[in-house]
């Protein structure tokens, strides 16, 4: 429907008014509604008993959200003015509890709002031992630049910023789960957890708090009997991804299976570029190199790799910096086994990722060259 400017209002401003009979069709795939939204408060004028302030309803009791009209409760934008959907849903939940009390004629106090208690459920070591990441800032164009062009004033996150922002998220309920049938109470998880989350009772039963556990994966990797599963990036998914990547690249030689820590500052485009520029590299992303053990390194060689590269995220971007030493220890162990197997420890490389991007090209050039000179892995695939 087309609009035209109507008569000027009291302030002299003309607003668009629909042109009757001007409806037309557009052939599109997606429609994004970008209309202004405001409360339609017209119904309030028929409710004289309802306490109002301007065109908003007054919730007399902030806990139960009761209004001045007995039996009527109010929440959401009608009370607060424009706010988030989450806040409106929370108000709905509180109003429901308030109604329950009202109908039962009870005066039992409502539980404290969850926003006050939830953050305190995270235990001290989690707060103290994980790296703090500040909220990413989206850039606003300086006023001088806004005047001289048509560039976007408030930009959205670039891909790498958006990824970094998403990685700030705590991983409550995505972490370690113990299979009681398999657990042998060896306490390895209790001892290896950088955040002191697993707790054992006198009978050896292990409890891992689902809110506290941040899915770092150390316990799952070290558990000698495979009794721990992580919901976030489970190990078998990584192994499947490796198997698929190796079967997709079977025509390429040599191949360097490369594990890139997702906490590095890179995006999907960097990975695509790497694949194009370095066909010999088989990239796999992992939720921290702490998820990689000797088994995974050997598995890569079994699948036909000629070398394995582990690229660690920059130190300051590692959410669990304490685990970095353990990664070094494991790789030393894997190197020793590779040496004993006659593969040569120099087919296992580790490096640090640059501040921005996936990997330094000079490093990659040199590595590919070196592996080519070494020749194929002595394993006959």
């Amino acid at each position, binding site marked *: 429907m087309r609009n035209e400017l109507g008569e000027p209002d009291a302030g002299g401003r003309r607003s668009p008014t629909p042109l009757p009979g001007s409806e037309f069709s557009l052939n599109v795939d997606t429609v994004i509604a970008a209309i202004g939204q405001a409360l339609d408060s017209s119904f309030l004028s028929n409710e004289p008993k309802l306490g109002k302030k301007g065109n908003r309803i007054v919730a007399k009791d902030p806990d139960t959200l009761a209004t001045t009209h007995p039996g009527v409760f109010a929440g959401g934008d009608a009370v607060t003015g424009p706010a988030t959907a989450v806040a409106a849903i929370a108000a709905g939940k509180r109003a429901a509890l308030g109604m329950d009390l009202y109908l039962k004629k009870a005066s039992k106090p409502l539980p404290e709002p969850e926003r006050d208690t939830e953050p305190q459920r995270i235990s001290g070591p989690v707060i103290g031992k994980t790296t703090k990441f500040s909220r990413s800032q989206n850039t606003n164009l300086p006023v001088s630049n806004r005047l001289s062009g048509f560039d976007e004033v408030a930009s959205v996150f670039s891909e790498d910023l958006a990824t970094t922002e998403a990685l700030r998220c705590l991983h409550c309920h995505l972490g370690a789960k113990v299979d009681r049938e398999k657990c*042998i109470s060896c*306490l*390895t998880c209790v*001892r290896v957890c950088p955040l002191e989350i697993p707790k054992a009772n006198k009978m050896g039963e292990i409890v891992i708090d689902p809110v506290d556990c941040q899915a770092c994966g150390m316990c799952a990797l070290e*558990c000698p*009997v495979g009794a721990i599963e992580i919901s976030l990036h489970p190990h078998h998914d990584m192994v499947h991804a490796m198997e698929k990547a190796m079967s997709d690249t079977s025509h390429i030689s040599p191949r360097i299976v490369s594990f890139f820590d997702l906490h590095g500052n890179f995006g999907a485009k960097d990975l695509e570029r790497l694949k194009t520029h370095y066909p010999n590299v088989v990239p796999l992303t992992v939720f921290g190199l702490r998820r990689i053990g000797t088994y995974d390194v050997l*598995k890569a060689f079994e699948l036909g790799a000629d070398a394995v590269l582990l690229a660690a995220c920059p130190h300051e971007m590692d959410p669990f910096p304490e685990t970095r030493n353990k990664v070094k220890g494991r790789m030393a162990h894997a190197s020793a086994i590779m040496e*004993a*197997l006659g*593969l040569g420890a120099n087919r296992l490389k580790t490096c640090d990722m640059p501040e921005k991007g996936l990997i330094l090209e000079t490093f990659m050039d040199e590595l590919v060259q070196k592996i080519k000179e070494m020749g194929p892995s002595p394993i006959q695939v």
Partner: protein
Amino acid sequence: VITVEQKRLEEILEMTKGHGRLLVLGCETCAAMSLSGGKKQAEELASAIRIARKQSQEEGEVFVDAVARQCEPEFVDLVEKEVEQSRAVLSLACGAGVQLLAERFPNKVIIPGCNTTFLGVTEKLGVWSERCAGCGNCILDKTGGLCPIARCAKQLLNGPCGGSTNGKCEISRDVDCVWQLIIDRLTRLDRLEILEEIFPVKDWSPAGHGGPRKMVREDLAS
């Protein structure tokens, strides 16, 4: 815990060479707790053996299984089918588990993947130390809860010897003299007079010097 330590890979490869289809069998109690013989370690070792075999073009599948304890016949019998399907079994259990396998499967080659080390405690993740020698006649009441049989290099009963210097044993500066620890502890408990009683010559027969030991609970075994 009974601690076991995986043998060197070179030794394992030598022992398993030429045996064809191989079952790597984990033992998921003491050996797993020693982080040497759980299913996880069995998978890792199997992968290494496969890589070695690929290089030498040796035939024979390498596969993995595990039981709760290889020292219990009921558990061992649960993998009978897997054992029968293999030419040899590489056991990651302690010596007891390896021997029970050999006993239950008289026609199978059974290979030990671990060395049984000692009865000990976990100091911290990845560090274990010896505390008990299983001598069959506990004297910890007389030595302040510290065992000279397991922890004195000479197994002295009336120590310390002249090799004790600044609380350390002459064999290594890293090893505490257990007799120094015993005296320190009994002093702290104000029970030093216990040591005035001289230990007689020890009867080592309960320690196995009188032949293999056997324990029978008549009420249960009958």
